[in-house]
């Protein structure tokens, strides 16, 4: 850490000693915090057998697995559809025809400005769609629009010389796009696309609010069971590591892909997007690449 920020010099022996003292104090406070939480957990009887018993039953395990399967199903459909929609909208925004460009821009801006939950509720309540349809449609509209922005900024970030050289060779616009710009843009934006998919995966949990039988819904069913003494905390303790683990795995993929593409000679003419501070935030700004 030291040396990378403007905040400190490399510490000398006395400063290191002082930092060590701070370290001991901070560790003590943090350990105290953890101990207090553990005490609370034990004190309110969260580790009793009755509360953890349901997870032994086969039926409950199957219920959880079914929920997880539904979550992954919604994610897979929404991811595939939003990639398609993102591609279409990006093509629209890069079109040479002004009406097409305008229409695509209005759609993208509108769907990005709306809370995704409002769209999901609208499709679920007003259009009376099935929960899965409503969830997938809402996620697709939102993430598709964001991906369109990501892809467009990728195409625009490819060095100007590439486009000019391709046109000079006599290629048509479609050829320039398909053979020159898009392949480089996709490579550069792949990390950003993956981190947007993490947002989609996280947002599948919104299905819980429209009674789609996904992972969180399964958890709620178990947690509100009186026979097991309302095992709320145990359910959260079981469910959240799985959710967080899945998302972290995907985020980690994004970081790895970003490192690989940065080293790749095929991204020489475009800057690779690195998942920035705003990545992974539902409703946040999509990552864009610095202009060359």
């Amino acid at each position, binding site marked *: 850490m030291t040396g990378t*920020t403007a905040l400190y010099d490399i510490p000398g022996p006395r400063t290191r000693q002082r930092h060590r003292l701070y*370290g001991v104090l901070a560790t003590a406070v943090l350990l105290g915090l953890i101990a207090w939480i553990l005490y609370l957990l034990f004190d309110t009887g969260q580790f009793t057998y009755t509360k953890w018993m349901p997870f032994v039953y086969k039926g409950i395990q199957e219920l959880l697995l079914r929920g997880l399967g539904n979550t992954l199903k919604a994610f897979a459909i929404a991811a595939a559809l939003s990639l398609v929609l993102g591609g279409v909208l990006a093509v629209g925004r890069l079109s040479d025809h002004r009406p097409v460009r305008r229409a695509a821009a209005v759609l993208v801006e509108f769907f990005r400005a*709306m809370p995704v939950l409002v769209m999901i*509720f609208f499709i679920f*309540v007003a259009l009376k769609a099935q929960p899965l349809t409503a969830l997938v449609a809402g996620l697709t509209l939102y993430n598709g629009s964001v991906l369109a922005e990501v892809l467009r900024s990728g195409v625009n970030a490819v060095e100007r010389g590439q486009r000019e050289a391709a046109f000079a060779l006599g290629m048509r616009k479609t050829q320039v796009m398909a053979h020159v710009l898009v392949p480089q843009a996709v490579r550069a934006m792949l990390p950003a696309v993956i981190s947007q998919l993490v947002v989609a995966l996280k947002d599948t949990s919104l299905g819980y609010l429209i009674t789609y039988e996904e992972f969180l819904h399964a958890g709620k069913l178990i947690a509100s069971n009186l026979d097991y003494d309302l095992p709320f905390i145990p359910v959260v303790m079981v469910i959240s590591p799985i959710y967080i683990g899945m998302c972290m795995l995907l985020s980690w993929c994004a970081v790895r892909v970003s490192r690989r593409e940065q080293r790749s000679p095929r991204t020489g003419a475009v800057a690779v997007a690195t998942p920035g*501070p705003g990545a*992974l935030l539902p409703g*946040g700004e999509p990552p864009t690449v610095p202009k060359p």
Partner: protein
Amino acid sequence: MNVLTDNFSLYARGFLGTVELTVYAGLLALALGFLMASFRVAPVASLRAFGTVWVTVLRNTPLTLLFFAVVLGLPRFGLVLPFRVFAVLALGCYTSAFICEALRAGINTVPRGQGEAARSLGMTFGQTLNLVVLPQAFRSVIPPVGSTLIALAKNSAIAGAFSVTELLGTYKTLNELGYDIVWTFVWIALGYLIITLALSALFHALERTWGVAR
């Protein structure tokens, strides 16, 4: 049209609920995010680790799960607070992870030479921080913090689904009263647009006044 005029007070209550939620959660997120960012750049390893864990876990948690855990889980510890406070806690903690990252990225944009120059002039750590590093970092964090707060306003819709008085939550009452559901949602959408556009205008103004000249 008459959906809005007939139920103006209901819409207004929902709208103000969303604004209030956004403001309180935003303040909490800014305070916590600042604290976590200072942990993450601290020279103390255990604080850095704590900051990293906080950010990594919260960034990878679905907000609905966090709401679920806070609204329905915390009362199990005997902590019974109004729903509104729980919603502010969940939204604020969640957003603080992103604010923290934005602030940290801002601090890291300040070139090392700035700090070195300040120290060679004999400035203390506090002076370096307050007079040299933070003013420059502040300029570059305006846009990312703005977009994070806009996202917070949009995410507050989840609170409405957990029955906190909020803009999205108004659809339930209106639906039961038998109003045209499409128009109900049009006015809800307009409400969110007003909030997000106002926030974005505010941060554009801040950016114009304080932002980095490019």
